[in-house]
């Protein structure tokens, strides 16, 4: 079975000569449908670059990026743009909602850009907002929403329609710890419905919501966690206390 996302020996070099910076060096990473992967690393380790390349917002200097088995370099620019709109959802730290559009308009915009009729887009958008428990705020503008609500709308926009890959860069932003936790619950729930998710974070508590944590240092994958053995293993640990 093909992975939802596969990075094969991906490198990214910025600049040239003495100012050359290796942001990513031969990174291999596969993410399956239904899996949530967290990428952790200090500032400047290449986390955000990895995400923008995975989402085809930026091109790799070398290596291959496959989304649903399709090599992004092998398709035309317009096809790549269509894949970005239809298959990949993004959640950013600053939420990036358009201030002049209501919550539901923000969510349906990518569908309408893709030619979905307004009424159908509205229905799909509302059901995404419902999934995230903010349907009653659908007609509100971003500045009328709380930080937590804005992020729910941003996640709804990222999962609306037939998205297969969900990419999130520090998605809990400046939210407090319980609001941050609910964002992670929502991302995890979205992946459980069959989407592949990649979350970039420097916070261990947020990363611990992922099925797998990949550690990045100086542009290289240096380590990753093994699948958690399940909560029952904590009982044995408790008995030793």
């Amino acid at each position, binding site marked *: 079975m093909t992975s939802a996302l596969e990075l094969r020996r991906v490198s990214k070099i910025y600049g040239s000569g003495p100012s050359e910076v290796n942001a990513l060096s031969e990174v291999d990473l596969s993410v399956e449908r239904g899996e949530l992967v967290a990428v952790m690393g200090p500032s400047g380790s290449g986390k955000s670059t990895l995400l923008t390349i995975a989402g085809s917002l930026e091109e790799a200097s070398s290596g291959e990026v496959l989304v649903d088995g399709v090599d992004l370099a092998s398709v035309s620019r317009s096809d790549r743009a269509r894949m970005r709109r239809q298959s990949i959802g993004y959640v950013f730290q600053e939420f990036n909602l358009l201030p002049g559009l209501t919550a539901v308009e923000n969510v349906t915009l990518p569908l309408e850009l893709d030619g979905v009729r307004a009424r159908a887009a509205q229905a799909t958008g509302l059901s995404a907002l419902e999934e995230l428990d903010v349907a009653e705020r659908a007609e509100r503008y971003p500045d009328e929403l709380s930080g937590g609500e804005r992020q729910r709308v941003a996640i709804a926009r990222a999962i609306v329609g037939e998205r297969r890959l969900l990419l999130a860069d520090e998605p809990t932003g400046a939210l407090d710890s319980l609001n941050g936790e609910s964002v992670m619950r929502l991302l995890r729930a979205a992946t459980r419905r069959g989407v592949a998710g990649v979350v970039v974070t420097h916070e261990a508590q947020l990363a*611990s919501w992922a099925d797998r944590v990949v550690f990045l240092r100086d542009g290289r994958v240096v380590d990753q966690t093994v699948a958690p053995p399940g909560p029952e*293993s*904590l*009982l044995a640990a408790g008995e030793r206390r």
Partner: protein
Amino acid sequence: MSVPHALLALLSEAPKYGMRLQNEFESRTGEVWPLNVGQVYTTLQRLERDGLVETDAEGERSQKRYKITATGAQELADWLRTPPDLVPPPRDELVIKVLVAVQVPGIDIHEILQVHRRHAIEVMQRYTQVKAAAAEGEVALALVADAELFRLEAIVRWLDAAEVRLKRLPFAPPAPPADVPVEPTRTTEVSQ
């Protein structure tokens, strides 16, 4: 975790039998802190000896039913307001390992830090699973999992800070002379 005070708290709701106390203790701490029934009865005997609980006179069944006394209720109220000992143990094992690793020739300190970081996050993933599986009403379980998660997160943050500090070193620290052990005073300074 103070088992005697947890039992006093459960008894302050109503008189209870030992088995029920064990079940309630475990269910309220999300089974993260297991407690065997032997431990429950030994603790109850000590509490009875100290006058903090007493057994019910009307014992229809062969087991004893326990209830809290006025002294027990006062002890519980006092304990709830007494700050726990927040001073860490004088020599934290992880801190010592990292300090020693810095001194050992041929050891990659960043690899050592990463081993401990990965382990801490794997344990965090397990506690997060407990929290994720908990029903919305299971507040006690979420509180226990949060406490462990914040404690482990502090360890990860310390490892991250250690990594940055060690990267800033202008050169690798010299290995101590073979006949001089690592000074214990430095260990204490860092663990505070």
